[in-house]
Every structure is written in structure tokens, then in C-alpha cells.
């Protein structure tokens, strides 16, 4: 197996690699408001996100295809973030000048709105702190929206509650 991609060796995918799969929306779209980023580059047999989306923004021809996203349809509602079993859906919003909003799935005890949490990258690296601005829940999966520096919008993919 010589053609195994790097992310299959590390469990970490880069934004560049995601772009090649057509999974990163154009920056102009993100500047208009919240939009989904589906980080699911492998052909697994799953189409939960397709049925989770109320506006039909995610599609799959076959159950094992890589998801296709229609950025214009997506409203950034976060439904797929709550429902995707792979916790692979995120929402990014670059419509504000001095901060970005990132929504990540979370299956640990949830932080509260207003709480400062530790921001984590795809490799688990701590990327500073961010303020929680929204928490929604479905069947014990939370979608946590945090305020982050705009340059971290494509990097923050998890949050961790600070120890008391």
C-alpha cells in the first residue's frame, strides 16, 4: 500500500488536503455568514449528514461516496454538526471583522455560554482560549460555537473545558 495518504497515517488532515476533496468552501462564501465544513474525506458507508440537513445542502450519490456540499444552500444551522456520527461536521463564520465563529461537535460535559474554553487543533494542540457564544444539543451531542481569532477559524476543531 504505497498510495496511503498522509492523513491515514496520522489521523490529521490539512486544509490543503481537504480543499482537494472539495470540502472547503471559498472564502467569499464564509465571509457572507456561517457555512458547513465537512471533514469526511474517506469513502465510508454513511449518509447521515445527507438526511440531517434540512435544506439538502449535503448530497451523496452512493452511500459510500465522499459528501458533496452546496455552499450556497447551506445556512450554517449546525444540524449536521449535532447529528454526524463521525463528528466530522463543523460550521465556520467569517462574516465578522475582528473575530470568527467556529462551531464544533462536543460529546463531553458541555461548557456554558460565556465560559472561556481551551481551543484545540486537529492535532490536539492548544490554540489559546475562546469564548463560548452558543450551545445546542441533540441526543447528548453538543454543538459549541466559540469566538476565535479569524486566523484560527480553519484550525480550531475542538474545545476543552478549563479545569477549575
Amino acid at each position: 500500500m504505497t498510495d496511503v495518504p498522509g492523513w491515514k497515517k496520522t489521523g490529521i488532515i490539512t486544509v490543503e488536503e481537504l480543499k482537494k476533496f472539495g470540502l472547503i468552501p471559498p472564502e467569499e462564501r464564509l465571509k457572507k455568514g456561517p457555512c458547513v465544513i465537512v471533514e469526511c474525506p474517506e469513502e465510508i458507508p454513511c449518509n447521515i449528514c445527507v438526511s440531517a440537513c434540512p435544506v439538502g445542502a449535503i448530497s451523496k450519490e452512493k452511500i459510500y461516496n465522499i459528501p458533496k456540499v452546496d455552499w450556497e444552500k447551506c445556512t450554517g444551522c449546525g444540524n449536521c454538526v449535532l447529528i454526524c456520527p463521525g463528528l466530522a461536521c463543523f460550521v465556520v463564520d467569517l462574516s465578522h471583522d475582528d473575530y470568527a465563529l467556529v462551531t464544533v461537535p462536543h460529546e463531553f460535559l458541555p461548557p456554558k455560554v460565556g465560559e472561556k474554553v481551551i481551543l484545540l487543533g486537529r492535532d490536539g494542540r492548544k490554540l489559546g482560549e475562546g469564548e463560548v457564544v452558543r450551545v445546542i444539543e441533540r441526543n447528548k451531542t453538543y454543538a459549541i460555537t466559540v469566538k476565535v481569532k479569524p486566523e484560527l477559524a480553519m484550525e480550531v476543531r475542538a474545545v476543552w473545558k478549563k479545569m477549575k
Partner: protein
Amino acid sequence: MIAVPGVDRRIYQHPILDFKWRGRKIKFYFEGKEVIGYEGESIAAALYANGIEIWSLSKKYNRPRGPFCMIGKCSSCFCTVDGRPNVRICIEPVKEGIHVQRQKGLPDIPTTWKTAEEEEILETDILIIGGGPAGLSAALKASEYDVNIILVDEHFKLGGQLKKQTHKFFGSKELFGGLRGFQIAEKLTEEIKKRKNIRVLTQTTAYGLFRGNWVGLASYNKLYRVKAKCIIVATGAHENYLAFPGNDLIGVMGAGGAQTLMNEYGILPGKNVVVVGSGNVGLIVSYQLLQAGANVKCIVEILPHIGGWFVHAAKVRRYGIPIYVKHTVKEAIGKERVEKVIITQVDEKFQPIPGTEKEIECDLLLLAVGLTPDIRFLAQAGCKMKWNSALGGFVALRTRYLETTVPGVFVAGDASKIEEATTAMIEGQIAALSAVIKIKGPIEKAVKEREELLKFLEEYRKSPVLRRTREGLKEVVIE
């Protein structure tokens, strides 16, 4: 070391589970000392929760034996309970006042304990062996067709390994995708209770097939002889072992065993954990350990790439769990139980590279190195078997309708090849429809339903991540 004073490994706060099933306190005895368990716990779970983890001593070298598989498929938890020897305490519920004794090698033959007093002779259309995802789905599907069904399981609760799955299922919405495994178990079990044509026998073992489609069943105080028109074998799988020095220390556990403890019983299997194997099981158990409050030190993988799905790997990487590919465990070290492990890098031939050893302190070493189909009933029944490593070992030859070479004996789920719970549920339904058709003839609705399920399964298995299973199946599906 018997009870550990002050030890309480029970989890009281968990992001997904609420442990509301924990019933009243139950007092029982282990080696003469009082232990407190909760109604709904297995004896093994209650003991582990109290820090009691040596459950038997090995035959030859008196080595301590503790939790490994936790689902009644290995032999490390054999105890004598109220004089009854060889009780698998991992699938035996706690009861008030029982006396549990460690077994040291072979037990004495029981003298005071009475053998089965009662016998019942039963006739049924379909006997289903195993109440996990495949067996439960088979029972429900068959019951729609006005046939009588007997469903047996060795555990005291139905649900099989769905009960310990806290993650949401993949697949599609129609197939419970999006629900968590234990929620699917609850749903299916509830539904089974409502069906009048399904009789459930828990804590009952199907010990063999006899001439004329008679099957012997045994529970503790009762024997059954069942004449069944069709039999569906859905006995699941058992966890694989790995050979390395120290692999029998207490604290070296199957990944599934740890899931049973933490997700089914709410008991933390360990605080600092090393996981061997990065297949979906290894990745998922690591994530679940984090949710339960443990610290996962690393996942080691002998292959040069991660075995499981990327999304599962990404989930654990985000929280900083390292995955070391091209690594394996060399040795587990500890006096009474595991205290540290030595991992090492391997070369292309999977041989350890000297000088690359790393020592990691831990109190739990989990083996997530694959599963083997539980084929014991099938083999005894005389089904033709074939070795296929992609499918997990010896598996029964079967038609695409899941009938084995013994007419009327069907197979479904992990017992038929190692795959996953979603496909096990579909296979259960296919086997049920095949049994119905065998008994009642080609009912149009059943034939149609079966074709649709087969088509879905075929499409599902086209996923590149299921390539090995797909190719393995070609070798064992017969005309």
C-alpha cells in the same frame, strides 16, 4: 489482595450515560467478605468496581486471572457461586447473599448443588441463538410473518454488544444510523417484549444440535429440548489475544471488555491507558475512555497506517491522543498487575527495531486486535467451514440467503464473519426472511423484502473501507 478498601471505580458523571438502571444496593460475598453491588450489575462488574480483580488462578502456574472479555467468551472469570462451579461471573447478575469463590485451577465436582430439576420440550418454527444486533433483528423480522420464535441468549440481558456502544451509528437513517448503540439495543429489546410470538430465554445456552433438528438448551435449573424447523445462529464473536511477555497480567484487557465495564456498567476500567490496535474498535474505545474520564496515553498500530476510519481517528487526535503507527507492544510489566508497558517500533516485516523501545506507565493495556467469529455451535452442527483471514478466521460456508451447508441452519452477524453491527442487523433480517420462506414457501412480500435488503447490503459493502470483507465473502458464499 482481596477487597481494596476505599476503592470505588464507579463512574457517577458521564456526558452520554446516566446509569439510571443502577438499582438498589445488593450485598453478596466474595471469598467470605462482604461486597456491595447494584441491581443490574454482573458479579464481575461489581467486583471490579470494588477493586477486586483477581477472580481465578490459572491451572498450571497459579497466575491470577481477571477481566478480559467480559461477555462470557473467555474463561478468566470462572468462579464458584453458591457451590456451582465454572460460573462466568461476567454474565451472571449479582444477587443478595450469594457466595462467590475464586477458582484455583479446576474446581471440585459439585456435590451439594442439584442438577436440572425440570425439563421442557418445545416445538418452534425458528430458534434464534444469540440476542445481539443480528439475533434481535432476526426475531423482530420473523415475527412479522406469523411464525413462532424462541430467542436464547447466555447473558441475563438482551442486546449483545450493542449495549456497550455509546457512539452514534453510521449508515443511514432508516437503519438506526444516528442513534447510539445502547439506544438501539433498548429499542429492539422493548419491541421484542411486545411481540407475542417471540419467547425469550436468557441465561440459557444452546449446547448442540441433535438429529432431527433438535437443539439442546440449558439454563441453571432447567433443560429444554427444542425441535425447530429453522435455526438462526447469531452467536457473535470473541476478542483476539496477542502474544507478548506479561500479556496475562491483570489490567491487560480486551478493548470490548473495557467497553462493557465502562459503558454498560459505568465502571472505569483504568486511569492511564495504552491501546493496542487502531481499527475502529481501538479508536472508538479510546474516545470512550476520554469520555469516561480516563487518560489515554497512546494508541499503537503495527501497520504503517491507521486501521479504522479516518473520522474516528480524527476524533481522538483532536484531544491529543497520539497514534503510533509501525509500533507494537513488546512487553507488559508489573508485580500484581500491569504497571507499565514497553512499546517498540517495527520494521517492514513487523519485527521490533532494537533501540526504539519506549516505556509507558499505565494501569490498563487494551488489546483491540480483532475479533474471531464464535462458530462453536455451527461447527458442532456440522456446517462446512472455511478459513478466511479477512473474515476473522473459520467461518461457515453459506448461500447469499445465509443458509449454511446444514439445511435449515442459518447464520447472521459476526458469527458469520467479522463486520459491524449495522450489517449484522441487516443480515439478521435476511436470515429471518430466508427461514420464513423455507417454512412457508416463497411468500411474495418476504421475497421482495429480502431482495431489497440484499441489494442494500451489496451497495453498502461497495464502500472501499469494506473491501476486505467484500472480497472475503466471495470465498465463502456458495450457490
